[in-house]
Each structure stands twice: as C-alpha cells, then as structure tokens.
C-alpha cells in the first residue's frame, strides 16, 4: 500500500511538448523531456499546423499547446520569445536562404544574434559535415540551388546543431531521398543525441494509409 502511495506521489515526467488539436480529426501528442519520438499525423495540413505552432509558440483557437510545461496561450512578448529560442526545426517551413551559400546559411542566425561565436559555429559545422562524409571546403561555398536534397538537409541540420535547441523537430526527413540517402540521414538522431544528451527530438511525418 505504501509502495503504491509512493509511486502515486512520484512526479510525472516533465513534458517538452503537449499538443492537442480539436475538430474532425482529434490529435493529442505528449512528448517527455529528453526523449526521441516519431509522430505520424494524418495529413500535411496537421503536420504544418503542429510545426508552425511549436516554432511560433502560438496556437490557433482549436489547438492547445504547452512547451516545457508552459501553456503558450498565456505567454506574452519576451516570455514567448524565450520559449521560441528553446525550440528549433529542420523543416521546409524553415528552409535555406537562396542567395546565401551553405556556410552563410549555417552561420546566419549565430552571426545575427552574436552567439555562439563564429569559431564555434565553424567547429560544429566541420564536425557535422565530417560525420556525414562531406568535404567542407567545396560544400560550404555552394548556394542551395547547387545542392542536392540530401545536402540541403545536412546544411539545415548543421544550422540546427549550431542553434542547439532543447526541443528539435525534424519534419519529413526522408521526403525526396533515395534509400541510400535515407540511411545516411538516419544518423541525425545519433548526432543530435551526442550533442544534446538531455534534448528532446521529434520526427514528424504523414501517416501512410
């Protein structure tokens, strides 16, 4: 009896994300802090709604969203921005900037916000590209139009690793990739985990019916 009571009293794991969407197709998602989850949503509209809500830390009237235990509906100004700084995504919504080369794309947020320092950005980028077998000198000078789908995803992933979000969402990772390329991008999870052992990683995809 006392064991049961003890078990009941132990705190529930803190959630990095709690998302509810009401309507014709109910969606309920709970992701504990520090976990890796694969979420399949019924359609692309629901998928972009989730990613957009998380990235904006803002939800529509038919949605409920909590990030790191805080309901985003009550957030204002700086508090919302603080939460937004803790999340990041590899998603078509946060694509690459076409008139910047791969290095400028990776370094842009850091150069604009002044952190992390560019030397650190360079080191992280080299490591990430090394893991995925890309030669930085030629690769980083190319603009997005000169990159293949896999290379664009690796660039966006390197940018995500530089930002180092506590909650990272990777949307439609395998879209447009060959089987061999899918095997390579599977390494994203391991690389994220290696860099952010306590971070939360969510893979979002559309359910195949």
């Amino acid at each position, binding site marked *: 009896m006392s064991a049961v009571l003890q078990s009941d009293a132990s705190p529930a794991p803190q959630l990095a994300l709690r998302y509810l969407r009401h309507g014709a197709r109910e969606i309920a998602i709970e992701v504990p802090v520090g976990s890796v989850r694969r979420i399949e949503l019924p359609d692309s509209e629901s998928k972009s709604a989730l990613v957009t809500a998380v*990235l*904006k830390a803002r939800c529509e009237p038919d949605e409920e969203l909590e990030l790191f235990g805080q309901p985003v509906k009550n957030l204002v100004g700086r508090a919302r*921005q603080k939460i*937004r*700084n803790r999340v990041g*995504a590899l998603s*078509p*919504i*946060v*694509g*690459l*900037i*076409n*008139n910047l080369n791969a290095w*400028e794309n990776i*370094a*842009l*947020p850091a*150069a*604009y*916000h*002044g952190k992390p320092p560019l030397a650190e950005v360079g080191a992280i980028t080299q490591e990430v590209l090394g893991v995925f077998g890309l030669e930085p000198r030629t690769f980083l000078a190319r603009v997005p139009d000169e990159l293949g789908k896999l290379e664009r995803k690796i660039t966006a992933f390197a940018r995500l690793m530089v*930002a180092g979000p506590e909650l990272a969402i990777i949307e439609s990772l395998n879209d447009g990739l060959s089987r061999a390329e899918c095997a390579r991008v599977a390494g994203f999870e391991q690389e994220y985990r290696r860099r952010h052992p306590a971070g939360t990683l969510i893979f979002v995809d559309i359910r195949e019916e």
Partner: protein
Amino acid sequence: MLRAVREIEGGLKLSVNAAGRLPVLRKPPILESFLRQVYFTGVTASTGVVLRASLLGVLIIAITMDVLDADVDLAVKILLLVVFREVGPLAAATVIILRSGTAMSAEMAMMRISGQTRALRYMGIDLYDYLVVPRVAGVMVATVALTFYIQALAVAGGLLFSPFIIEATFMELASRLFDLFSPVDFYYSIIKSLLFGFAVAAACCYHGLNPPDLTQNAVPKVVTRAVTQCAMLVLTINAVFAYVVFGILFFGLVTAKV
C-alpha cells in the same frame, strides 16, 4: 484609391522603420549585406556609364555653343547647372532603378513567395534589419557614389572632347569651370541623390515584401509596380526639391501677380 492609400502608409512606415534602425548595420551579416548591395548597385553599374556620361558633357557644351550660339562662359555654366543639379542625380537614379530596383524587388518578392522571409522570422531575424536596412543604406550610398561618378565623367568628357568640335580650348573651359563652380551644387546633388536612393530602395523593398499574391505570377507585377513607383517618386522629389531649394529658398515663395 484604397490601395494607393495603403501603399503610401506602408511605404512611410517602412521608411521610418528603416531610418530608425540604421545602427543595426554594425551587425556582421547586415554589414556584409550592405557592402554587397553597394557593390552590386554602385560598383558594377559604374562600368556601363563611362561612355554615356562622357558623351553627355560633350553634347551639352557642343549644343549650347553651336545651337544657342553661346560663349564659353554660358556653355560651362549650363554644363554645371545641368550636370550637377539635374542630369547627374537623375541619370544615376535611372541607372539604379533599371539595374538594382528591378533586381531588388524581384529578389525580395521571390524570398517572400518561397517562404524564405518566414524562415528568417523563425530564426529570430528581423526582416527590416536583415533585408530592408542594408538595401536602403546600400542603395543610398551607391546612388551618391554613382552620381559623383557620372558628374565627374560628364564634366571631364565635356572639357576633354569639346575642343574637337567647338572653338574653345581645354584650358579655357577648365578655368571657367573652376570659377563658376559653387559648393551649393555639390551639397544639392548629395542631398538629392541620397533622397533618390532612399525612395528607390524603400519603394522596391515595400513592393518586394508585399506581393499581390504568393504565386510566381506576382513577381513581374511586383517589378512593374516597383519600377513605375520609383520613377514617379524620383521625378516628384526632383521637382519638389528644385522648387523648395531654388524657388523658395533663393527667390522667396513664388506667387502669381494678377
């Protein structure tokens, strides 16, 4: 009508925002974007205007002396007035509208349509800071530089090549030029070209960031609107500026006598 009012309001807001954010130029990526804008608008445009600007000076001197039967004094005076006050800044503004205004508005419209501006916002990058301020500042600097370049080439061309077609020596023309040149012309063309650059860049940024719809078809519409509005703005500023400076300032408010 409503669209015009909205455009004026939006353009003014954008201009005020851009002007108030100039200190962000210190941030490395914004400074880089600013320098890139100066290079593409000013430096790359400069090679194409050498011959045309030089011929402009020759034409002004030759026409005034030949057609108007003017003396060296009047010819050089007209060269100064026309090149420094009117044609120099206008020619620079025209080159910039045609070369950079079109490119800038199309590029920004493409960024907006393809979701790149949204990506910047999600990365916490302010669109005014990263897209508008460096372009506006860059185009302003480039317009001033290109104006001086055109003025210098037109005057030099006029002085060097006119002696081949009129009866005046280079020394004669040059000495009259230095006698007649006044600093007012210099300041006048700086302020005017700064205003031209600001108006052109602000109009192009405004239209680029506010396409009529988010399809590829919106790009040519954006470019057409931006270029038309830039031309109208430049002509309006030119007329108002000339009237304010040389009308009211030097001769008082002009009133009709009945």
